[in-house]
């Protein structure tokens, strides 16, 4: 693309952004009062950045496969209410507004959107969420506490709504939390936009098992930013099972701050029509002896598209890092497509980073084997697809949360 047309494109998309989000921005500005100075300041900054940069456009390297403009343009967005949270013991769940005086809460709300040190137009959706960063929940698990009943977070959006949820999670030293997000829809005609930011702090030896059943409407757009910081020996297990959404950008920023920590990011999709499922991650191995794995299994029917941009960054001195990535896609139609782009940026010497990406059709020989034993075609296919998708659960400590 020539420079002139690139600039033209940028200008065009900025104008579009202004139009799409004008009502949302106006409302957010009116709502902001009674906030601690730092948070109010942050909202102002976010407003400036968002209006300056606009929604990420395809010319940006990390957004070239996922253009949200055409989808968002068709919506007529009005703000939506908070999502529901259920648990037997809700003492550790509170609205952000009730916790705003706590320093750690303010620190998270004011944190710079990750992705890189500098402020970048890549992060515009995060800024957009910042405009209403006190709308959402704080989940705070004290030290030495195991919450054995899964915390259920359920969200169902209505037609033409905009839902900017902020979730702040802190799991204290030696504690464990199982959290199960259910993203549901009423009908597949409902067009809505969810723009969520989830920030997770895992203190030393804390564990979070974080599953997300994404079954949004086939007209929905959803952007999820999940930022995790891990203390010494902490463990994060993130699993997203994708079934719905017209367009979903699932973005993880995982930062290792203490040695011996582990993070898993897993994602499966069984999607069709013109669904678009994008998983974009960055694992920042900033300290020694941490491990991470990323497993993606996509089954793509019809005109569905899968995207996996997985980055592993290993800082100088972060030796004995083990970071693996594996992406496999089953393309069940000639029009389905998968873009897999593993990326490694390594500055340490002693590092193990395996990555692999494959993409192919259903194995006809396996299908025949099953059919020759009497299993009908559709069942045989479903059995093989289910087995393929199950691979994302390999080694995850999922059982205790049920």
């Amino acid at each position, binding site marked *: 693309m020539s420079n002139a047309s690139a600039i033209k494109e940028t200008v065009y998309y900025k104008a579009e952004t202004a139009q799409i989000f004008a009502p949302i921005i106006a409302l957010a500005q009116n709502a902001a009062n009674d906030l601690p100075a730092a948070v109010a300041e942050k909202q102002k900054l976010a407003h400036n950045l968002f209006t300056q940069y606009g929604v990420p456009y395809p010319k940006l390297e990390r957004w070239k496969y996922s253009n949200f403009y055409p989808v968002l343009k068709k919506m007529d967005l009005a703000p939506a209410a908070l999502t529901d949270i259920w648990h037997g013991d809700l003492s550790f769940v509170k609205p952000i507004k009730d916790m705003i005086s706590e320093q750690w809460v303010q620190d998270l709300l004011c944190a710079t959107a990750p992705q890189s040190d500098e402020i970048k137009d890549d992060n515009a959706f995060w800024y957009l969420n910042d405009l209403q960063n006190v709308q959402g929940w704080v989940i705070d698990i004290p030290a030495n506490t195991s919450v054995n009943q899964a915390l259920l977070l359920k969200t169902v959006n209505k037609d033409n709504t905009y839902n900017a949820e902020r979730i702040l999670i802190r799991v204290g030293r030696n504690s464990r939390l199982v959290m199960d997000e259910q993203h549901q829809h009423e009908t597949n005609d409902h067009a809505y936009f969810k723009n969520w930011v989830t920030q997770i702090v895992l203190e030393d030896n804390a564990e979070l098992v974080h599953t997300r059943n994404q079954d949004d409407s086939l007209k929905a757009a959803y952007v999820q930013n999940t930022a995790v910081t891990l203390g010494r020996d902490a463990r994060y297990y993130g699993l997203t099972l994708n079934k719905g959404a017209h367009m979903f950008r699932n973005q993880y920023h995982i930062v290792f701050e203490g040695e011996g920590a582990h993070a898993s990011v897993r994602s499966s999709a069984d999607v069709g029509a013109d669904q678009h499922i994008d998983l974009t991650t960055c694992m920042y191995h900033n300290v020694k002896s941490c491990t991470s794995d990323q497993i993606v299994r996509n089954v793509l029917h019809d005109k569905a598209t899968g995207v996996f941009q997985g980055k592993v960054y290993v800082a100088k001195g972060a030796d004995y890092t083990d970071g693996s990535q594996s992406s496999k896609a089953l393309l069940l139609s000639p029009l389905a497509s998968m873009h897999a782009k593993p990326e490694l940026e390594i500055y340490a010497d002693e590092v193990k980073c395996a990555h692999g990406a494959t993409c192919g059709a259903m194995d006809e020989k396996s299908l025949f084997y099953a*059919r020759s034993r009497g*299993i009908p075609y559709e069942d045989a296919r479903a059995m093989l697809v289910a087995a393929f998708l199950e691979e994302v659960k390999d080694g995850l400590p999922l059982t205790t949360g049920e």
Partner: protein
Amino acid sequence: MISIKNLHARIEEKEIIKGLSLEIEAGKVHAIMGPNGAGKSTLASIIAGREEYEVTDGEILMNGKNLLDLEPEERAAEGVFMAFQYPLEIPGVPMNTFMRTALNAQRKLRGEDELDSLAYLKKIKPLAKTLGVSDDMLKRALNEGCSGGEKKRNEVLQMAMLEPTFAVLDETDSGLDIDALRVVADGVNALRNEQRSFLVITHYQRLLDYIKPDVVHVLADGRIVETGGPELALRLEEEGYAKFVGEAA
């Protein structure tokens, strides 16, 4: 009774089966021997319903029905079974899940009640034990990480579970050590009865010492070129296939 009449089949313009005819009566064991590339596995695959091969002429009748008109799963429900020369690995699907699904799918197609997991286990446990298939293997993904011999035992176990009326064994003896060969042959012999027919493809006369065939055929260049009694296998062991390959060419 199985009757294969004037079968012609090809793959990608290459004719592999060139007018093959064969009759197997109920309760009989027929052996097929023949040089590499003769078309033995192709014949087995066509009987089981592999779509890759294009049948250009002929028919395969079983109890009056033309198997060629049926889907692979329908043939299985009719009682056709093929033990694969190279059994597949199915990652993520435990043998128990696979077997129970298959068994119940067949029962359903035949209009019979499905087996619950207790009844299933009651059926498979003793069979697995006689065939030397461990509990661990039943729980593991099908054939994954199994040795060649273990996969073959697994095939015979599947056959014993599904109780076919027509079983095709494609080189089930290759890859087996002497003891395993005996175990597998015993497994097959235990299934022999008045109604059940077998087509045993092998390169080795040794197998036929354990599984005594009623009839032995030589398949060369896509045709049955010689048919005889068990003594034919002994003769082949000595003379090789040179005579038939020459004739067929």
